[in-house]
């Protein structure tokens, strides 16, 4: 339909110079897509070779060559294998999946609600997840911690996040339709209520619990293990796949709900699907990583500035950039304060904010000039 990702049908039928801007646009989008993929790849390699155990880029290359029977370096030892496969790799996979899912959810909700200030947690998801996590840390961990093991926190946050979204949509719906303005306002109201609950729980908490909550709330990928990923990845993958498949619907929704409906979009069904997929992404992410803010708000805007608002081009780029952002942020988090680990939320905000400002000013300069 549009020239997204090379726009092949457009190129085939081009005739005369009138089409050239489109060709430029298509090529530009392809270039941005490839650049985003490259950035993610660089991030993955970088994240694989930073850390306290001293497996650098040279050693990584040796191991990789040895693994495919090339080179003369010694193959990976047990420790190295353990570090790469069971410490670093799961974090990278989790970071990439969470980053992509959050960026997709942000892009989708911004389009659905036609509002650039929307972030995926807006519909109560993050506040609900936080309440679930805090309740668990303050009251649950001591009481039944042994039963659920390390999963307890993740499960509590996940349930809190999903439950909150269900509540918001249920309150906002009326006669089968969910009004956008009401959805946002109900989200704001329930967020306040959940925050009050969180605050009260914190009031009752002891010092250790307070510290745990603080670290959880700043986010971390350190809880990434393969068994945990086996649960979380399908959620993130399903949510991401659903959102990417909605590219055309999201384009139509940009026109407005009535317009989309007139174009044959089943708006009321699609709206629930989009909110559910976004909530699933945020809930799965928040459970394992804590609340990593910012990615879902800023990355979609950055991607939009690079490739425009058409979702066939926007969504893949946003997903790749979101993934790259979290993988790189985690690599940084493990490096800057080594051997300690900075909470990743600090980095996504500290690096993402300036990046966003640069994009914003560049765009403004281009439009003025």
């Amino acid at each position: 339909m549009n020239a997204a990702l090379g726009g092949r049908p457009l190129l085939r039928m081009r005739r005369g110079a009138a089409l050239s801007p489109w060709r430029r646009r298509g090529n530009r989008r392809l270039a941005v897509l490839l650049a985003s993929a490259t950035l993610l790849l660089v991030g993955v390699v970088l994240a694989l070779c930073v850390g306290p155990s001293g497996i650098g880029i040279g050693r990584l290359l040796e191991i990789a060559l040895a693994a495919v029977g090339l080179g003369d370096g010694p193959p990976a030892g047990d420790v190295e294998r353990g570090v790469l496969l069971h410490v670093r790799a799961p974090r990278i996979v989790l970071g990439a999946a969470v980053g992509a899912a959050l960026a997709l959810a942000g892009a989708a909700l911004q389009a659905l609600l036609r509002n650039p200030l929307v972030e995926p947690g807006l519909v109560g998801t993050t506040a609900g997840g936080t309440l679930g996590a805090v309740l668990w840390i303050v009251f649950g961990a001591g009481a039944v911690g042994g039963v659920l093991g390390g999963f307890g926190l993740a499960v509590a946050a996940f349930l809190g996040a999903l439950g909150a979204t269900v509540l918001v949509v249920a309150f906002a719906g009326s006669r089968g339709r969910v009004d956008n303005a009401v959805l946002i306002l109900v989200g704001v109201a329930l967020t306040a209520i959940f925050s009050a609950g969180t605050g009260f729980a914190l009031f009752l908490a002891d010092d250790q619990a307070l510290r745990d909550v603080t670290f959880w709330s700043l986010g971390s990928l350190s809880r990434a293990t393969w068994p945990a990923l086996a649960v979380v990845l399908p959620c993130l993958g399903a949510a991401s796949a659903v959102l990417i498949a909605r590219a055309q619907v999201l384009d139509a929704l940009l026109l407005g709900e009535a317009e989309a409906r007139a174009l044959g979009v089943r708006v009321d069904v699609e709206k629930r699907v989009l909110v559910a997929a976004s909530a699933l992404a945020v809930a799965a992410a928040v459970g394992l990583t804590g609340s990593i803010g910012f990615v879902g708000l800023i990355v979609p805007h950055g991607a939009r500035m690079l490739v425009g608002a058409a979702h066939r081009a926007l969504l893949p780029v946003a997903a790749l950039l979101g993934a790259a952002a979290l993988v790189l942020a985690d690599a940084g988090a493990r490096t800057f304060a080594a051997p300690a680990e900075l909470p990743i939320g600090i980095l996504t905000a500290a690096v993402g904010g300036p990046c966003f400002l640069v994009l914003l000013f560049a765009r403004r300069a281009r439009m003025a000039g």
Partner: protein
Amino acid sequence: MIRVRKLGYTRGRGVRARAVLTDINLTLLPGELVALVGPNGAGKSTLLALLAGDLAPATGEVRFDGTRLDLVPPCELARRRAWMRQGAGVPFALSCLELVLLGRRPHGTRAASDLRAARRALADVCARELEDRPADQLSGGERQRVDLARALVQIAGVERALLLLDEPTASLDPAHGAKALGAVRVRVDAGAAACVALHDLSLAAAWADRIVLMAGGGIVADGTPEEALHEAQLGAVYGAALRVVRDPVSGRPWVLPPARP
């Protein structure tokens, strides 16, 4: 193509309910351009939304080719009916060509012919040069032309299509306004039915086959421009001494604003 019987619409519920439309009877035939005119708040936009199937009638019914409108599958309706609202614009930077191409969505194809149709529609409303412009940076008149192009492309190549346009010329200069209605006229002459809300009564008289004059949620007059636009009726509906003269070239009514005291 469209038959409306005893249509009524109410906004709000309970004691605060307010009748927006009452007892509307209307027929739209293929090959007919019907102008919907009347003062602000007469119910023109609501009537168009009901004809589009976006609002459900409180009383009465709308039939589309004999089928009750709410029973026509949305995707089938979307292939034959285009509706242009008084738009709110797009929040993010779709290009105008992308925006117009969305009109082809109901037809499911993604072919080169869609792109040609979109460009032709943009050219029809003199907006060809806008195709690469971000749609969130258009002036009011530019946006209106692009929206109209989207409506036109939605029914491009469709037989017996229905065009519902809510003030498509409100922000257009006279030349673009005439060009826009000319583009609608071409579709109508090819067999579409069009219902167009307009505030410019002279423009309506110049382009429409029939004029439906609305006031206070009801239809006051429904007939040829000569029948619907005469001074006594306009005076009663608008509460102002509008004057009707003849266009010396076409002989159609030409409505002038009240004379200065």
